[in-house]
């Protein structure tokens, strides 16, 4: 009896699921919006800045997630399936999951080399490009450091690329995109001038980071990145490595131990408790669904935190 019941339940379940799938398929969802699939929240926000109400931007990750390690989960396959634009950091940051999504979503218009595919790192000068590549060196990116959005000059360059692509994909709204891009560029330029004045006072400030997530920020600010808590990129701090850092820290006047929200805090806690150096968690990116203005706040907050650390000790 049990067997017969489970048999009919399974058959019924299969039939229902198949019908459901085909039923959903038939009414093709008509949406005039340009669908942007952003790998990280900062790019989704930038797409909202430039695209305004004409785009529907979705971020595959949220601010607490490490964009190096994401699962190619069903929701992302569905999103990429309908994307008009795939907008990511590139330089192999998403190499563990984006190619699989692209393959599974099978959307022709967003494949590498098409108008609908923007990898930010391909459009700005890339830092820390390794000359030797070997797995024993840790999780290094052959394409260089991919965390390019933390230099505001890069944001300007990438916004322009994005604007051009949006116009190419959705020429009907070309004037709208052009106008929004110009407005964004103008206010971003003003913001950079203000930030530049503030960060010159931080130049040379020695810091330690957990992972090299802030290289572009420090490069722009002229901060001095003394060491990383990670032994090698992607390889967690070890006791011997941290002890080594302890000696290094004492000989140089380190002002802050910096980490991203998704970095584990144990390493910086330990070093901070041993040395009394302030540890700060920089925002790194914006909230997943952050609207226009969030990128300005990201840099404001970041600079404030570093100013505080510099003045504090």
């Amino acid at each position, binding site marked *: 009896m049990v*067997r017969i019941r489970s048999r009919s339940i399974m058959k019924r379940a299969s039939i229902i699921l198949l019908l459901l*799938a085909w039923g959903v398929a038939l009414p093709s969802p008509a949406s005039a919006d340009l669908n942007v699939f952003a790998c990280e929240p900062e790019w989704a926000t930038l797409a909202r800045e430039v695209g305004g109400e004409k785009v529907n931007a979705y971020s595959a990750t949220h601010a607490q997630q490490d964009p190096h390690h994401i699962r190619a989960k*069903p929701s992302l396959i569905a999103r990429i399936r309908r994307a008009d634009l795939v907008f990511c950091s590139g330089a192999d940051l998403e190499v563990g999951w984006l190619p699989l999504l692209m393959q599974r*979503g099978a959307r022709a218009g967003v*494949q590498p080399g098409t108008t609908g595919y923007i990898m930010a790192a391909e459009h700005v000068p890339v830092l820390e490009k390794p000359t030797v590549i070997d797995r024993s060196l840790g999780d290094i990116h052959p394409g260089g450091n991919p965390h390019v959005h933390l230099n505001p000059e890069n944001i300007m360059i990438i916004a322009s690329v994005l604007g051009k692509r949006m116009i190419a994909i959705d020429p009907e709204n070309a004037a709208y995109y052009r106008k929004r891009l110009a407005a964004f560029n103008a206010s971003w330029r003003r913001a950079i001038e203000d930030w530049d004045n503030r960060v010159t006072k931080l130049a040379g400030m020695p810091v330690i980071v957990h992972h090299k997530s802030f290289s572009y920020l420090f490069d722009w600010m002229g901060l001095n990145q003394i060491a990383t808590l990670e032994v090698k990129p992607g390889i967690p701090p070890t006791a011997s490595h941290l002890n080594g850092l302890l000696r290094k820290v004492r000989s140089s006047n380190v002002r802050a131990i910096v980490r991203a929200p*998704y970095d584990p805090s144990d390493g910086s806690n330990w070093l901070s408790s041993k040395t009394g150096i302030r540890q700060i968690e920089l925002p790194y990116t914006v909230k997943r669904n952050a609207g226009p203005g969030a990128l300005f706040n990201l840099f404001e907050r970041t600079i404030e935190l570093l100013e505080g650390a510099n003045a504090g000790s």
Partner: protein
Amino acid sequence: MNTPPRLPIVAIVLAASLTFSTTVMSQDKDTAAILQEIKSLKESYERRTAELEQKIKALESRKNAESAGSAAPASYKRNVKDNSFNPSIGLVLNGKASAFTRKTAGDMAGFAIGEEGERGNEGLSIDETELNFSTNIDDKFYGSMTAAIVREEGEDKIELEEAYVQTLPSAGLADGARLKFGRAFWTFGYLNEQHAHADDFADRPLPYRAYLNKAFNDDGIELSYVLPTDQYFEVGGGAFRGDDFPSGNSVTGLGGASIFARTGGDLGNNESWRIGAYALYSDANARATEEGAVTFNGNSYLYAADIRYTYAPTGNAKSQELILQAELFQRDENGTYNVGGGPVALDDTSVGYYAQAIYKFTPAVRAGIRFSQLDPVDTPAGLVGTDLDSNSHHPRSLSLMADWTNSEYGRIRAQINQEDLNNAGADKQLILQYIMSLGAHGAHPF
């Protein structure tokens, strides 16, 4: 048959070489003239080469001056340092040390098991060594081959696990559509698509061993389509040769067909799920199991449903994660079993399932539990007392595992099983396993 043509060939070769040497001798006088001509040609080319080199140098220095002035530094250009244009090569090394309380593997009550579904070797042994080559063939196709080197009956043999071509998104099919052809681990349930090295346990759960002989990888073709909806929906189906379990030996070369549908999504930021339903029809002609002692002729309809749920407390599956997974199988067989005493008709249904939970405590340490069970068919009168007589026993197995993952590329696992496959009593098993991957290693799907 083969010897007569030899003599004429030797004669022809001799004749040809003689003619050639006489021609060379008669033209000896002309050689000096030819040499002279070559010399003058050489001189003229050398002059031209020097001129061209001069021009290239001039162009290069102009180009360097130009690029120094432009904003983009040299690193702007993409640089192909690796072997991206060659196939990715990956190798998985895999070995076990096993100890069993029962010295001979017992039968799975009421089920005729294929070779791959049997208990592993006792003691020290290497498991499948997987070698994989894969790459995009061109703008339209992707190709992949995985061969497993395995020890069978005292010999190292190569088993071709996968050899398939798959369309790329720019192949010109509709958006969301993919066509895969060749031999592959086809879409059926959750585990079937993945290679054993990606499993969370050292062995496959009972339904996979009984119903799929570990995995279904017949020769065939499969079409799948992701619907253009906000929620993930994928449907598809395939046609197969009918040579791999649950089929037997293909008669027409077209003896299997499948259909499937899947859906999935997120619950909030850090939880995801997927469910699927699958059906596989197989024409089973003289399907041999139990090392040839049992043959089956007839049709097999296998249905499966799977569910998977993941929860990563911080959103980072790499740090901590809970994975719940279950699959339910049902097999309708209609045909005749022959256990040596002549064909016995059978038209009945059996059910199998497993459920498992895995928790990742830290990036390196995971632990898991799995329970699987099979409900065999009621033994037909003609099979009472044979290997296929279940004696109303329901084979079941409980497994506990813990593994340590040093990096994405290396994992060591310990597992204990309590297997209760028949009325003869439980088999307690201890398995220690290592899985190491070298070289390219594709991302595993959800």
